[in-house]
């Protein structure tokens, strides 16, 4: 039904409400727990599933074409920088564990402080270069590509 929320696991913390890109995870006011208010606008993107601190959210494939009895569970760990998946088939014949890295750095590090960078010169401003260019284009001393350096020129004879 796309996503659904287990009654006994959800404590109504609202992390899923906060993250859902489609604005469809809402808190039921009487039960004070989250639920999917609009399954037909759910992309099964798993953003809420990954964000739930209690693993209270799961996905049941779209009723229109997905038979019951399957399971795709996930655990995302920012501290360890990995995401782990478990896929179980309807017929029970396949049960896979898959792990992938999600970052190579401690979470939230590695970003530049652009305000602390030396201010771009007038020449830089007038040029075609962006921040950290030209170095970061080729990671060497090469310059940015222009029509001239590429040996190109406007081809005449365009027709409407």
């Amino acid at each position, binding site marked *: 039904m796309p996503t659904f929320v287990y009654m006994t696991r959800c404590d109504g913390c609202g992390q899923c409400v906060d993250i859902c890109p489609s604005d469809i995870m809402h808190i039921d006011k009487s039960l004070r727990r989250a639920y999917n208010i609009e399954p037909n606008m759910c992309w099964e993107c798993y953003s809420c599933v990954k964000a739930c601190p209690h693993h209270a959210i799961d996905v049941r494939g779209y009723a229109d074409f997905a038979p019951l009895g399957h399971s795709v569970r996930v655990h995302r760990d920012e501290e360890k920088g990995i995401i782990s998946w478990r896929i179980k088939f309807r017929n029970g014949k396949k049960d896979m564990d898959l792990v992938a890295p999600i970052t*190579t750095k401690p979470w939230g590090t590695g970003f530049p402080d652009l305000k602390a960078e030396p201010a771009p010169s007038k020449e830089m401003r007038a040029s075609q270069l962006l921040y950290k260019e030209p170095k*970061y284009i080729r990671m060497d001393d090469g310059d940015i590509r222009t029509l001239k350096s590429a040996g190109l020129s406007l081809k005449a004879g365009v027709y409407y």
Partner: protein
Amino acid sequence: MGYKTIVEDNIDVLVVGAGLGGTGAAFEARYWGRDKKIVIAEKANIDRSGAVAQGLYAINCYMGARFGENNPEDHVRYARIDLMGMVREDLAFDMARHVDSAVHQFEEWGLPIMRNKKKGSYQREGRWQIMIHGESYKPIVAEAAKRSADKVYNRICVTHLLLDEAKENRIAGAVGFNVRTGNYHVFKSKTVIVGAGGASNIFKPRSVGEGAGRVWYAPWSSGSAYGLMIDAGAKMTQMENRIVLARFKDGYGPVGAYFLHLKTYTQNGLGEKYEEKWWPQLQEMVGKEYLDPEASHLTHRPIPTCLRNHALISEVNAGRGPIHMVTMEAFQDPHLEEIGWHNFLGMTVGQAVLWAATNVDPKYENPELTTSEPYVMGSHATGCGGWASGPEDVSPPEYFWGYNRMMTVEGLFGAGDAIGGTPHAFSSGSFTEGRLAAKAACKYIDDGKAEGIRVSDRQIEELREKIYKPLETYRVYSNEVVAGTVNPNFINPRQGLDRLQKLMDEYCGGFGVNYMTNGNLLKIGLKKLKWLEEDWHNGMGAADIHELLRAWELYHRIRTSECVFQHTLFREETRWPGYYYRGDFMKLDDKNWHCLTVSRRDRKTGQYTMEKAPLYHLVDDKEKTAKAG
């Protein structure tokens, strides 16, 4: 209605929509505008918003110049042939010459990019694609944007752009509402960079009922990039150039890694290869210039995607479906099998869910492929969007009016889906376009172009009234009936969306009519669309703030659809067989249509003006041998 009006004033750079384009814009704006006020208005939560919300398994636009792989002009040639010649080559060249610098920074920020251990370069999936572990791609780039911006407003649905009242055709900010509190938000800004999305869900999807959310492009991509810009009077281009995707059936799982890296291939239901047999007929339609299998075989020139779609569609129509992806060979290798699954988990989890539900083990069974409903967008392998200025050192006069990535409305910039004529930008290219737009926006302000902007309270109040009208309509009329959703005075957003999808499908060339339309159908469709728009203005009911969000998403979809109709009607040829067909003009017609189409909707009258714009070729046809792939 007791919603507050919250005004954010004195903004220099307002980024509307923080997907990959918007995050690129916000990030770069800080470098060129260190003292400028940079604000982001995002409909969802920036950490998981836009098309990359669930992640990506590949970066599809990377030159690899540092490894001697490709040059920007190579990419222009590739995009040009894939789109049957129709590319803004200046914008494409500009994006391609900068894109690598974005990717190298992503790696520095912690994005895991796979390496080719033998070569030391990034692991290539294909000539232009590199493979990543991109589950957290979006949170990583969002982090960079958040550090640059002065303020990030999450959960703001931007409905309209503000226009300057001191100077005609100049931007002054944007307005919208908070989808949590309902409050009315006004952003007064010297420049606006539109990073909002293209359009899913305007053509009836193959998925039905509960499954209607399983569309290829994110369901929250509501064509807002186009709705906002068209309403502001910006010129649009190539809006007829919708895209149809060949994907794993029902789950819309991506096929790129399968074709390119796993070396899988397609066959028909009889186990035969089928593509080649359609080439002669297609060559009749489009000419040798665009389809030359022999040349493609000898060089790296690809067969255009739309033509491969045409072969698939034709084969199924000939009764030899379904089309299968032959995975059984590749999946015998455990490493490739793992990649095949990771590929879905990284960007289309729903396909993994579906295969688990239907016991599809690609090691023992070849999964089905099918073609999707059409999508209107400018960042993937198609080029719908705004008519934007190119860079000074590349663009011919007709493509240049002062500031890179600026629309025909002064101070209005775009990135990603918002920019027309630049297909094959994908995530990295969209981010790059955001960066280019941000630098240009800062220059525009520094040049004194944004002085003396005036926005009256009247404009702000009028828009406020418009925004909440669906709530008012519901409040007034809902009690006229006992219960339920059937009301003679209004429709709800879902009912409106269903009507839009049905008419787009039937009259504008959706999957239900095998992507076929013609002048007569388009005119009928436009008439029906006009009624839908009238109903939206006079009879759209929203029960709560969430429905109000859906109502405005529908509005942007309607505005986008109208533009698609106008453009499709204007281009009297079949330029992209496999994306759509003009039954009354079944051939590609270079003599009359080797040009770009440009539209402008008059803000006051709603009338469209269509024109042909020149299609300049900056890059010659000579293709060097690729090292990548």
